[in-house]
């Protein structure tokens, strides 16, 4: 399904009705073609081609500075694309906003901001509320339900700076859930969270999957990738490999992704082993 090395024609400007995997495009949550992103003259992502399968948990894995977050942000029109095309269920992002949820990195905001946890979760409904309108009761209820869902119902009225890191992460997750999207992007949802939060997030990921939703998450902990995710996208400026975890998440591919560093580690391990 995921096919990154295909030599099919992607230069045509017409939107193909069928993906390169042979699926109708409106069944493909995310199709990235020839995506290149550069900050000033330094490319951060180069010719990324990727099609996400529907209803799977997909991990984006790669070293620091490999462009993982940039990939998400470029797909969501948050950073300008140098070139390339991104389609969500066959249409550009601005026409599919409601279907796409986003959980940014926790460190990306100032948590000493004068709002409560519920205020933050309600923000996930703004796309449905409309400009300049007050947030109606049904939206408030949906936000409260999302907070309950992540096990934070008792903290609705708590100011967000009084929450622990894991609780803040769950508030962010609840905000995305409140939107009730079909495809979720999560930028390092497991970074710096406690064990209880990690368990809660995994439970929610599984619930999302069984509800037919697709999740694409940047993930750092290589140990847990095979356990948590069905598919994996290995990125280091370019797509190194993509596909089902079982066949793609191999040490060979990891070496290609992490390059010198893992090789060095291997050499060190070998050296230690031979000394014994």
């Amino acid at each position: 399904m995921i096919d990154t090395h295909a030599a099919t024609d992607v230069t045509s400007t017409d939107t193909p009705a069928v993906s390169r995997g042979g699926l109708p495009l409106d069944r493909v949550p995310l199709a990235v073609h020839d995506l290149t992103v550069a900050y000033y003259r330094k490319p951060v992502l180069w010719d990324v081609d990727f099609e996400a399968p529907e209803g799977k948990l997909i991990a984006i894995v790669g070293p620091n500075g490999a462009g993982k977050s940039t990939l998400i942000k470029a797909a969501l029109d948050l950073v300008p694309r140098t070139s390339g095309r991104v389609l969500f269920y066959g249409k550009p992002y601005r026409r599919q906003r409601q279907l796409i949820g986003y959980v940014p990195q926790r460190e990306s905001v100032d948590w000493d901001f004068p709002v409560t946890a519920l205020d933050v979760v309600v923000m996930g409904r703004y796309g449905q509320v409309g400009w300049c309108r007050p947030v109606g009761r049904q939206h408030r209820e949906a936000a409260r339900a999302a907070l309950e869902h992540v096990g934070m119902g008792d903290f609705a009225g708590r100011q967000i700076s009084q929450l622990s890191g894991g609780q803040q992460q769950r508030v962010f997750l609840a905000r995305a859930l409140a939107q009730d999207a079909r495809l979720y992007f999560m930028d390092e949802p497991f970074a710096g969270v406690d064990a209880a939060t990690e368990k809660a997030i995994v439970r929610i990921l599984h619930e999302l999957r069984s509800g037919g939703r697709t999740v694409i998450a940047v993930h750092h902990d290589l140990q847990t990738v095979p356990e948590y995710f069905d598919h994996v996208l290995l990125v280091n400026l370019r797509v190194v490999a993509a596909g089902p975890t079982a066949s793609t998440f191999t040490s060979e591919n990891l070496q290609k992704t992490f390059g010198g560093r893992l090789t060095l580690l291997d050499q060190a391990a070998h050296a230690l082993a031979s000394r014994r």
Partner: protein
Amino acid sequence: MLRSQGLTPLATDLDPSRVAPRCAGTVTRALRPFLHGRRGILACLCMASVVLLAPDAAVGGTETHPEADRSLRAPATWQLPSVPQVMRVLSLRDYNTRVVVVGTMLLGAGAGIIGTFLLLRKRALMADALSHAALPGIALAFIVLEAAGLSGKSRFGLLSGALVFGAAGVGAVLMIRRWTRVKEDAALAIVLSVFFGLGVALLGVIQRMATGNAAGLEAFIYGKTASMLFSDAVWIGAVAGVVMVVCGMFFKEFTLLCFDQDFAGTQGRSGLLLDTLMLGLAVLITVIGLQAVGLILIVALLVIPPAAARFWTHRLPVMAVIAAGFGALSGLLGASVSALAPRLPAGAIIILVAALLFGVSLLFAPARGFLSTAWQRFRLERKVGQQHVLRALFESGEPLVQQAQGKPGAAAAAGPVPFAALLAQRSWSPATLRRLLAAARRAGLTRRDGDDAYHLTDAGLAAARRAVRNHRLWELYLLTHAEVATSHVDHNADALEDVLDPTLVAQLEETLAAQHPHLAAATGPAGEGPAVAAAVPPSPHRLPGQGAQDVPAGRAGNVSGRR
């Protein structure tokens, strides 16, 4: 003075008695959609100000003509204002004072609200850049007007120039940040100084112009609150009203943008559009406030009241209302003080009043204020210190006290602990230990026993039991779950035991019950009074000041095994 500036015709032109009802009608119509709920307050505020600005025959009339009034407001030499003067100012009976006070109040309120968002967007200094950028606009407008043969004093013309250049200054900062690698602080500094320099240069040009009637332009730099006219106040009121209404309409959008710009993008809220709107409102309020407080001080009205308001609340709507209130209060007090002491420039007094409010907030605000946080820190330190004393006393006589549990006089069972033995238990100074012991004695937790020795009272035993129990649960938790080396547990637990709340203790009990059955047995139906009912688990490490021979048989193997 007014006549010399050629402004009297303008004032009579805008006859308040005609304007006021018209304004009231306009404001009511504009605000009708918002009259319900919270936003009704804004409408009432606007209308009240319009009513206040209308001269009423009873107190106003001909007697409050600006010229006549000025004699009252400007005594030749500095002297303390008399009581009737103070009363007159405070009751707003003078038409002039009333105009100035209401004008500055509205300016303060409007600046406070938009300033709240600027502050939360971390754009506080943007106001500084844009107010300085307005100066060349004013100077250039003056030159153009004079060159065209018009009066260089046309307020509309000057403020239009300020508006254009203020917006250009903001645009320049945003463009430099967006398209170059120059950081925002450098961009702000560059724009601020370059525009201001251009303005000063143009003022120099004006000084040499043939018409040369440039007196009054410096009012834009330092402000001239006292010479505010009715029409100025109406303009300020109109802009403040626009700011309040737009901020009310876009409250949730502005909140979202300030908190999380990227997420705003995913909700279909263009950051560029909202930023433009927000900064546009800031430009408006700055330009309209230039004449009142001057371009150097207007930034203070945008920044200080919101910063002060932040101390009092953690709800954004409340913060905005408090900021508006502080801004209005600064205007009220500042204008009143300067009306009583005309030697003092009103703009500066307004800012000083705002700074005073900020200082009061910083010190005395209940949750975030300095005194409150210092008091909380002091109480935490005292509590931790007291727990250390109680634990030291408990652990000194632990086996005996444990055996005597439940019997009367259990607390005294272990006998008094000499001061030197307590001192050896922890790395505390004798003075600290004495202070802590004295505090514990005052709290009725310990008793001094003749020869500089101490033991726990019954109440002290209960408290000590609770403290020791929490501490050891935490130690066990760290040992079992966090893979912390035994030798490090004690230290970590000391630092963290205070975060143990009852729910966490319950969780620990649950987690540990399987491994330590004696805990589960003791916490069954105890209900309240866990201090007596719940068992204290044994310490997982050797206690200081306690030799191996003191350890009960059941635990001896355990401890020595770990050593």
